[in-house]
């Protein structure tokens, strides 16, 4: 059965972890381990894909682990299978990439043992079929990834990142724990089957939604719970960053879908609205953060927040349609969200691989120190460019296909009866369009400042092309981005069974439609054909090039830079990431980040350089976390006296607490 196969391979990952600890200081240790991880994850992904295509029945298994009278339940259905493909495709890519990248690792012993454990934990989360195993796997995933974040623990920034991550992760698990408590009830059975049947969710639906949004949302990176993400993702080695950003956030999305769509069941319309609006805000704020950021890996991490927002818009729409009994529209929204989950895992991994190659080759993550890498690392540049086009939602690549489907879902929503939805859906549509347009600006900046122009430092000028494994991985992933852009039907049809299982409806199979056309509702309404758009552009570009070279001139002369006749030989005179983002900072940044620019010009005769300062305030830190931290600190200071009591007083305190709890219980019932 598929679930047994998946569990065996997950166990193999777990066994690989201590093996890794033993062999990590050998020369051959890292290649052996990454090859094994590559094979295991490829097998897992292949098995799940075969399950999806064959349309098999869900399979379950109970292991005598965990709570004694209950055991650990595992189940693999279509939804789990979709996410197993996403996880293990990303894991296979990261492992293959690490065959080359891992050789440059300074401290392999801090990475290798935790890497397979992290992969096992993510697989266990999507396989778990009771609350106990789910939470245990979830926490295991947090801790193993925390260990990877702390791999380079001597940098103070990484220590802080690890601390913030640990706090947020434990907080998220706590929220999930409480949510499961509400779902299962006081005498409850924690198996998912029992929760599904109990119908207890309806009583506390708003509290459950809030707790799930806090728990899964903090892992996924919903604004304002995103603060750990841009700190922790870049701190890890690049192949782990790719996994955390491209894959682990998707496991959080899985948690949300599993609980809200599957366990809780019948939603209310305002739940859809809350998720939808939260998604829209997250998308725009995430991309604005990314625009203000000039560290390449942090920019990518911030940009993950935007994509999470887009996915949550799709999920919110699906909830809204479902609550109004419109299964076809809900299926379209959920398919769009799941397709974007898959697409984002592809291009975000690709971009992190590229940033890792740049980091390896130049030692710099700050874009202001890079530039001109397209000449020094031409192959990395091509793959990174494909990732940039895909993530900016530009046709004919895959990012556009899933955003296009989300827009089609939005256009179905005027038939929703509730006023709150009638007003919030078009506003969210505007936010989605805004975030897509800003994403394009963000990636013009990311690619342009890093790879184009002239090198800004000697390090950038001395960069060399990265190793063969990294390049191969990036090209395969770039190829996948193109493949699912021109043939989106491949992914959409594979997602179909998962949507059918959750909503009882799915999109009509798209592959049989002639010319690989994508028709979400009906051909009269809307259609898009990535393959033909791609072919048209390629053919007309080719035709134009041949015609121009044949009829016009084909001569090209290289000369000095023109720049209107006043070229400045210093590479510092070119546009930087900061200056590129300046217009957008002025327009949006003053509103969101209270951006403030200050120019200090020395007095006449003074030879000191003029200085330009920009200050940005992070609204999430200043508005929520800083007050929270000072409140905790204040309370801790006040409670400090309790640390130095005698044993008698401690016993009294325990007794008083017990009595108080009993009184509460007596009044409650």
């Amino acid at each position, binding site marked *: 059965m598929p679930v047994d196969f998946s569990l065996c391979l997950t166990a193999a990952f777990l066994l690989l972890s201590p093996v890794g600890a033993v062999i990590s200081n050998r020369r051959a240790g890292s290649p052996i381990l990454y090859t094994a991880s590559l094979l295991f994850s490829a097998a897992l992904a292949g098995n799940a894909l075969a399950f999806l295509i064959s349309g098999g029945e869900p399979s379950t298994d109970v292991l005598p682990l965990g709570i004694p009278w209950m055991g650990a339940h595992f189940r693999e259905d279509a939804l789990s299978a979709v996410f197993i493909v996403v996880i293990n495709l990303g894991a296979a890519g990261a492992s293959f990439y690490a065959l080359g990248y891992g050789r440059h690792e300074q401290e392999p012993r801090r990475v290798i043992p935790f890497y397979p454990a992290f992969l096992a934990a993510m697989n266990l989360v999507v396989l778990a079929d009771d609350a106990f195993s789910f939470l245990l796997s979830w926490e295991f995933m947090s801790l193993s990834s925390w260990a990877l974040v702390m791999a380079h623990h001597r940098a103070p920034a990484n220590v802080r990142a690890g601390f913030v991550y640990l706090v947020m992760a434990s907080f998220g698990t706590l929220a999930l724990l409480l949510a499961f408590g509400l779902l299962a009830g006081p005498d409850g059975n924690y198996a998912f089957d029992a929760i599904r049947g109990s119908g207890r969710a309806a009583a506390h639906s708003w509290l459950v939604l809030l707790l799930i949004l806090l728990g899964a949302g903090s892992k996924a990176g919903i604004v304002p719970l995103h603060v750990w993400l841009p700190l922790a993702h870049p701190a890890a080695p690049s192949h782990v960053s790719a996994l955390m950003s491209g894959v682990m956030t998707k496991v959080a999305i899985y948690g949300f879908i599993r609980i809200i769509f599957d366990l809780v069941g019948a939603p209310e319309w305002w739940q859809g609205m809350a998720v939808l609006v939260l998604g829209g805000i997250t998308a725009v704020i995430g991309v604005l953060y990314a625009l203000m950021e000039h560290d390449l890996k942090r920019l990518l991490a911030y940009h993950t927040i935007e994509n999470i927002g887009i996915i949550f818009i799709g999920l919110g729409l699906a909830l809204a349609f479902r609550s109004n009994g419109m299964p076809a529209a809900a299926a379209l929204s959920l398919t769009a969200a799941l397709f974007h989950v898959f697409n984002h895992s592809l291009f975000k991994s690709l971009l992190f691989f590229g940033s890792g190659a740049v980091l390896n080759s130049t030692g710099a993550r700050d874009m202001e120190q890079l530039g001109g890498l*397209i000449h020094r690392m031409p192959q990395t540049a091509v793959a990174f460019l494909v990732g940039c086009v895909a993530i900016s939602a530009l046709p004919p690549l895959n990012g556009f296909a899933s955003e296009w489907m989300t827009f089609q879902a939005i256009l179905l929503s005027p038939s929703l009866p509730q006023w709150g939805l009638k007003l919030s859906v078009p506003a969210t549509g505007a936010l989605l369009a805004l975030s897509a347009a800003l994403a394009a*600006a963000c990636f013009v900046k990311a690619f342009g400042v890093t790879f184009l122009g002239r090198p800004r430092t000697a390090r950038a000028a001395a960069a060399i092309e990265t190793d063969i494994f990294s390049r191969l991985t990036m090209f395969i992933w770039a190829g996948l981005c193109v493949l699912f852009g021109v043939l989106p039907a491949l992914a959409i049809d594979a997602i179909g069974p998962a949507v059918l299982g959750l909503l009882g409806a799915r999109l009509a199979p798209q592959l049989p439609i002639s010319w690989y056309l994508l028709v979400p509702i009906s051909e009269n309404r809307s259609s898009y054909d990535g393959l033909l758009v791609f072919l048209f552009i390629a053919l007309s570009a080719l035709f134009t090039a041949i015609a121009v070279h044949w009829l016009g001139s084909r001569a090209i002369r290289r000369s000095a830079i023109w720049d209107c006749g006043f070229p400045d030989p210093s590479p510092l005179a070119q546009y930087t990431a900061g200056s590129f983002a300046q217009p*957008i900072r002025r327009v949006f940044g003053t509103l969101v980040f209270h951006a403030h620019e200050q120019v200090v010009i020395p007095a006449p005769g003074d030879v000191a350089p003029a200085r330009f300062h920009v200050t940005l305030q992070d609204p999430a830190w200043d508005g929520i976390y800083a007050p929270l931290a000072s409140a905790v600190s204040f309370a801790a200071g006040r409670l400090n006296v309790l640390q130095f009591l005698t044993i008698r007083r401690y016993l009294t305190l325990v007794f008083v607490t017990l009595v108080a709890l009993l009184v509460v219980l007596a009044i409650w019932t």
Partner: protein
Amino acid sequence: MDLILAFATQGVQMLLVAAAAPLFTGAVRKIKSRLMRRVGPPVLQPYRDLARLMRKEAVAAANASWLFRATPYLVFAATWVAAALVPTFATGLAFSWTADLIAIIALLGSARFFLALAGIDIGTSFGGIGSSREMLIASLAEPAMMMIIFVLALIAGSTQLSNIAGFMASSAVGLRVSLGLALIALIMVAIAENARIPIDNPATHLELTMVHEAMVLEYSGRHLSLIELSASLKLLLYVSLIACVFTPWGLAPADSGPIAWLTGIAAWLLKLLVAAFALALFETSIAKMRVFRVPEFLGAALMLGLLGALLRFVSAGF
């Protein structure tokens, strides 16, 4: 036979837009000059300019990458495909179902993405300023355009341009508030997207306020020629878009013969002439605005579009 005919009409459309684009640009320039009491260049001057640039050798900076040289072809191809999918003389052409209005606008976004990258490629301050401002304008114009698409799609029940045009030509459409808002917003977006006055001045050089021209400053010869042709095509695309949605008269329906096509072409040329007059008149009567006023202009377009979409969401009657 039907298939060959369908391919032929689509081919005619592609050649027609490519051939007519410089003519429209020339007509606008001529009318503008006449309005300013100048003689102005001949209407056919853009063709001569393009041909002259094609024949010259291209000069590229020593550090220009392959992206710099490939961009003109990519930009032209993407703009050309987008322009070929907007109905000009007939609806329901063979490939009209390939991409809907959202995809057409996104194709223009792809073209802009590469053009902005090419602006940064050489590593000059002019190129950077152009790219940076172009992306700012796009980041506001694209959501406004999307809201306009929402309005049109909700009225016509489709995002396919052929269907929208067909619906607009029918009697079912009537006079609607949201359509009026969408029209104003669409004109504002078209002005901004095509770098026309008051957002940008297509005739200017060596000014700190220029946007599009600063971005393509390093281009010369055949590359510049293709970029100028793409700019003309994009202008023609937006005019055709406004014409086919708001004045769909004379458009040949899907299954019509050559006579309907000929009247369609004549009607389209007439609409272009009217649009050229209107654009020239507008541009001569208004001054260029500061760059940081542009967000207000486009913000207004976005709000108009959003208002239109909200009206449609609230009630199907508006």
